[in-house]
């Protein structure tokens, strides 16, 4: 309905903001419970036929980049129907028990710690998480496996949410065969079959609250081609599920005057950087699942007591590789010309740093205050050394660190040089994160959190946060399944809390 003031009006039992790892499962849960649900997604709706094998094109179409307010670290998130699950690597981990216990102890989240594992198993089944078998273990993964075996380090194949992976190496570009069980493939169609409506290119600008109760959202329909505002949209709904992703959810709460001074705080990440190895044999690291094997020797979860990072194989695409290799000119070009012989290990660091995410200036990216601390950088250095040892043990001819001015590591004797490298963030070729957490954290005490232990906003009845924003911290493992499980639980709790019709 379009009113005389040019504002389009819609109403629903519930509106879900975002369609990624949080929004997708919440949308399906609400729709299957019989609610009339509307999902608003700021990005476009694409399908397998739209996904192309071109790094340069995928970048701009599927995701957004944000940088910290002082620069030096970047964040990436998917911005289309399906969210970051469209561009992620489909990796599945159960929420580690140590993390759940810490949340119980430090955030008064006993019910979450007790109940989440059950929802994890549901999400695990629903997205078809399966172990990466030999037929889907590429040479890059096998390089990590061989090094770990020779060093006696704990390692193994990761689980992935796929059905019939064709080894195309395009998980990050949008899966062109729908093998990856992204939210776009697994959750959104399921919700639509149950009657949910999904509006793409609809950006939520504000959550409306009246007398302590959520009333709906104000949004803007965007032109799909230009991304310029087209029509204002007003949605009336007694239940709003916020799942716009960590870079958007807390800023939206703040713009809406919800959460007080706590909204935006507690932002955390898994900071990442690449270590690259050159082998005599061709690796062809651009084929096969983009990720599939993890070295967990140095993790601090799942029974490990290491410094707190995991090393995982990752795709060897030209533009990404150009970014992470140090130097310029002939030396950089020589390394690039060996691309088929290169392998990457990405460090997934469980940061101890915490920061804040806030709205940017009008129309601008969010402001992220996050300065990776000296202790975290020290653990990153440890990870570079471990990755270099791993690759040398697996037979690499040389290992290249993502540090400007660093020399190639060609033997164990060279490893000492890593300890002497100046390693402030301006010298890293690429320091980034795609696993983001916090900004609207749950806490058992109202004075300490934005949401209660069921993800419901303390300050606005009928508003729940179902993405990683409401998780109280990082997980030490790839969080896709944890977020999906969290969203299922939050949505079910929201249904149970609804006043009778």
């Amino acid at each position, binding site marked *: 309905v379009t009113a005389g003031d040019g504002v389009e009006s819609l109403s629903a039992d519930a509106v879900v903001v975002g369609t990624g790892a949080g929004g997708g499962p919440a949308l399906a849960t609400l729709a299957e419970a019989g609610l009339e649900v509307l999902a608003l997604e700021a990005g476009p709706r694409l399908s397998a036929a739209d996904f192309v094998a071109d790094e*340069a094109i995928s*970048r*701009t179409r*599927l*995701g957004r*980049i944000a*940088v*910290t307010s*002082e*620069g*030096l*670290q*970047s964040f*990436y998130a998917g911005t289309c129907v399906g969210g970051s699950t469209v*561009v*992620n*690597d489909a990796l599945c981990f159960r929420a580690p028990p140590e993390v759940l216990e810490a949340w119980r102890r430090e955030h008064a989240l006993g019910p979450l710690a007790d109940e989440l594992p059950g929802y994890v198993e549901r999400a695990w089944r629903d997205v078809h998480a399966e172990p990466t078998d030999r037929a889907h273990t*590429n*040479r890059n993964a096998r390089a990590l496996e061989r090094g770990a075996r020779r060093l006696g380090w704990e390692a193994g194949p990761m689980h992935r949410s796929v059905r019939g992976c*064709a080894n*195309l*190496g395009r998980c*990050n570009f949008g899966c*062109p065969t729908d093998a990856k069980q992204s939210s776009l493939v697994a959750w959104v169609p399921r919700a639509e079959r149950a009657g949910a409506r999904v509006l793409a290119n609809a950006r939520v600008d504000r959550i409306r609250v009246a007398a302590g109760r959520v009333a709906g959202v104000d949004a803007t329909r965007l032109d799909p081609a230009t991304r310029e505002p087209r029509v204002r949209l007003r949605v009336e709904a007694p239940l709003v599920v916020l799942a716009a992703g960590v870079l958007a959810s807390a800023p939206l709460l703040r713009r809406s005057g919800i959460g007080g001074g706590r909204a935006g705080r507690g932002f955390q990440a898994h900071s990442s950087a690449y270590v690259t190895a050159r082998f005599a*044999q*061709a690796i*062809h*690291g*651009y*084929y*096969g699942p983009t990720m599939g094997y993890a070295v967990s020797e140095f993790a601090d979860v799942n029974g490990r007591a290491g410094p707190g990072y995991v090393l995982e194989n*990752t795709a060897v*695409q*030209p*533009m*990404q590789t*150009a*970014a992470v290799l140090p130097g*310029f*000119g002939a*030396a*950089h*070009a*020589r390394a*690039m*010309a*060996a*691309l*088929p012989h290169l392998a*990457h290990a*990405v460090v997934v660091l469980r940061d101890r740093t915490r920061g804040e995410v806030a709205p940017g200036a009008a129309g601008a990216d969010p402001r992220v205050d996050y300065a990776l601390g000296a202790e975290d950088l020290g653990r990153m250095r440890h990870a570079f050394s471990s990755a270099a040892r791993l690759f040398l043990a697996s037979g690499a001819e040389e290992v290249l660190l993502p540090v*400007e*001015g660093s020399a190639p590591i060609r033997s164990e004797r060279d490893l000492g040089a890593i300890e002497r490298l100046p390693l*402030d963030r*301006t010298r890293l070729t*690429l*320091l*980034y994160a*795609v696993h983001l957490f916090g900004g609207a954290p749950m806490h058992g005490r109202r004075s300490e959190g934005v949401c209660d232990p069921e993800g419901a906003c303390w300050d606005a009845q009928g508003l729940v946060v179902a993405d990683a924003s409401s998780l109280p911290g990082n997980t030490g493992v*790839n969080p896709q399944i944890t977020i999906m499980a969290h969203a299922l639980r939050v949505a079910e709790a929201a249904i149970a809390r609804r006043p009778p019709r």
Partner: protein
Amino acid sequence: VSAPDHGLAASAAADLAPLDRRAFLRWLGALAAAGLLPAACTRAPAGLAAPAGLRFLSPRTWSVLNAAAARIAGPRGAELVATGRVDPALRADEFLAGAPALARPLAQALLALELGVFPLVAKLRPFTALAPEQQDAVLAELAASRFATKRRIYGGLRSIALLGFYAAPEARALTGYPVGSPRPSAGIADAMDWPEDG
């Protein structure tokens, strides 16, 4: 964890965005925008003509970026740039359409590279007027500088130049990457089997 080539764009953004807060770079950009720099400083140097339709780069900054990209991309890349078969600056201009906030700090960084002299940049003449090996020395000095702002100028320009360069399929082909093979079954079979494994 990895993502579709966010790397070059992300590292460019991480290095360039905060440069806009450096006063001397802002002044340099403002003077150029106001037409207060000598004409010789703002006119594109002789050589390839800037393409029509640039939205964010001026003819001058286009030529400075391509000069830097030619050195950053290495010898074979320099040949592609010199002959106009790959235009990293044009590709960068296209990229800026999706990241317009980076246009100003990039222009400032390019002007600093072109017009900066000792002690800001280790040279006395415009970057585009230097011999290739002198240009390499300028970039190396920025990369190794003890001043974080200079390292950021280097990092940002390096990322934008590499982004513009490798965005071209001709440049990616230099790496041995199978450009244009969406379902290369033979290559995939090789990648999934490692005979030496065991």
